[in-house]
């Protein structure tokens, strides 16, 4: 019994002893899988609860510190075969490469945008929500601890160091909820300049091939406590460590489709 108490105390003191920078470092370096293929459903819900559904298939592969991602639209019919390719560079000084294949125009168009505050395909997620933040762009502080779905989390305040980061992401302050047992960000609360707040909530977290993957995520935009719009992303058929080669992340593949 004493041994158990001692072990608990040790774990507990270890947890409390963790520095916030160590925590965010662990969040950043956590294995989030590679060579991933998944189906993604995006449900867009307006304030009257009217829902639109977009279905996509996504392919993701890490090339060193950079990540390449292809998204093919499967439904609805009017956007079917639209495809999006992005080379997300880790280097802050290098703008991401992005191409969009528009089947109606039979044309692949390069997209130039360093503004990541814009909506990701009409959803409540912004492009910055879909990529890993650069740790050095922010200061962090543990605010408190809280149980989320029976799991202990740290609530960490994340403040952008410069106005440029605020402009780029659209967030002037965020609170991120990091689960203490696996370093997954399961919730986030973002403050926008126009008085709006965005709530990110991981509604389903699954361990797939040993990796924690959020398979259902909600992002809700509110103002004065009223929900303006929300988006639910659902991932299914998530397969890790697939044989993906460089050709699958090319304009050639965008135009050929899946």
């Amino acid at each position, binding site marked *: 019994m004493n041994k158990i108490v001692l072990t608990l105390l040790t774990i507990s003191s270890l947890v409390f002893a963790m520095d916030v920078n160590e925590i965010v470092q662990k969040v950043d370096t956590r294995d989030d899988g590679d060579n991933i293929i998944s*189906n993604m*459903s995006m*449900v867009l*819900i*307006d304030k009257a*609860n*009217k*829902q*639109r*559904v977009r*279905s996509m298939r996504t392919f993701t592969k890490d090339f060193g510190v950079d990540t390449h991602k292809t998204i093919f639209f*499967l*439904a*609805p*019919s*009017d956007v*079917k*075969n639209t495809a999006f390719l992005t080379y997300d560079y880790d280097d802050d000084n*290098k*703008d991401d*490469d992005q191409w969009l294949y528009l089947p*109606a*125009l*039979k*044309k692949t*168009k*390069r*997209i*130039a*945008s*360093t*503004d990541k*505050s*814009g*909506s990701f*395909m*009409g*959803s*409540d997620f912004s492009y910055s929500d879909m990529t890993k933040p650069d740790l050095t762009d922010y200061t962090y502080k543990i*605010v408190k601890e809280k149980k989320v779905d029976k799991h202990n989390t740290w609530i960490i305040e994340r403040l952008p160091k410069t106005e440029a980061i605020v402009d780029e992401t659209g967030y002037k302050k965020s609170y991120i909820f990091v689960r203490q047992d696996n370093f997954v960000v399961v*919730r986030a*609360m973002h403050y926008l300049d126009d008085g709006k*707040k965005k*709530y990110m*909530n991981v509604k389903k977290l699954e361990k797939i091939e040993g990796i924690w993957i959020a398979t259902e995520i909600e992002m*809700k935009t*509110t103002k004065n*406590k009223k*929900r303006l*719009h*929300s988006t*639910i992303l*659902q991932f*299914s058929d998530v397969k890790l460590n697939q044989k993906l080669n460089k*050709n699958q992340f*090319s*304009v*050639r593949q965008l135009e*050929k*489709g899946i």
Partner: protein
Amino acid sequence: MRLLLLTLIATSSLTYADEFEDDLSGFEEDSITIVKIEQIKDRTHQLKGSLNLSSSYNYAHNAPTLGNTDFRGLSRLKTTLDLSLDSKLNDKWKSKIEIQAFYDAIYSTKNNFYTNDMVKTYESEFEIQEAYILGSISDNIDLKIGRQIVVWGKSDNIRINDVINPLDNRELAMVDIEDLRLPVFMSKLDYYSGAWNLSAMIIHESRVQKEAANGSDYLPTHIFLKPNAIFPEDITPDSTLNNTQYALSLNGRFTGWDLSFYGAKVLDSKWHFVDNKKSRTYDFVKTLGVASNIAIGNFLFTSELLYMQDLKFNTTADEKSRLDFLLGTEYSGITDLTLSLEVSQRYIFDYEVSMVNAPDSTYKDERQTALRVSYSFEHEKGMLTYLNTLFYDNSNINGGFQRVWLNYDLNDNFEVNIGVVDYIGGDKIVLDAISNNDRFFADISYNF
């Protein structure tokens, strides 16, 4: 004093803590039940399509003289059906066939003096659009055979190097962009190596533009024909081995920029009189071009250059060469807004003053500008777009149009599109003659 300060600090941190706790409650509120999501399965054959009802209303025409077509009022009541079948033949090969049919009821419901040519051109149509097989014959080589569309160039609004497919020019500024290019039958071989792609095309089908009907509000031929003269029939060159067209492009995609080189021998997009002005036809032109774009921050810069030779005209017997140049930029740094501006310059070598006359209406040096502003709203449910394009000769406006339209998704299947187009007159007789074609338009589509 100290007590007051302590109280203030305590109150302020309490307020901050309360506010924070209050904000946290946002996670718990407003639970939503989402619709059942149907998982999209891989199918060998996938059919998709759309049914579109469109209408337009002309508001700027004058009353016609007796016995002539009245272009005022309702001018379109069109139903269009599009069907497209994608098939996966095996792991490496796939095929597509797309058909389109339309019927415009205005030509049978409105009591009007429509010419035979107008009825033939605008009342109904059935066509095979894209129809091809596509596959890989090795890791680096793709082959695509059949009716297809190949878009050259980097610009979005002004076409410079985009010379492969003829256009549907039946109603200037009114044809949906997805229907603008007409697919042609060709064999296309693509070789990929690193960042480069070499694309070779042998075009077997001699297909030319769909032009506006003779005597319609988009082709008032009386401006260049003598009274009672017959507008000569246009003759499309036969799709024979001798008339085969060729095209080659080399495309590179790099970090932050793209570069393409083009060369082609294709049918000209404009007709010329033959057989002592008894008929009209299209001849071959040779083109060499280059295009690039560079992304810098929120700006995308575009440039294109095209040299074209063997151009035939009606107002001179000599063949001419032309140099086209374009600079453009697109800015996407404002949330939900995209701004683009393109400016092109066309220069005719060995220009002759007679070429300014109709039907050529060609200037030695002609500039075109295109300004497009797009604003998306309600999480991309709606898109409002303004497009203005003008042609200039020195500082004179030769004509153009401006168009504003709103596209709105009612749900995942239905969308509406409403707008207005204003044709701008000027020194160019063929554009000035259609400056009264201003109209409102509205359509609704069901996509399935």
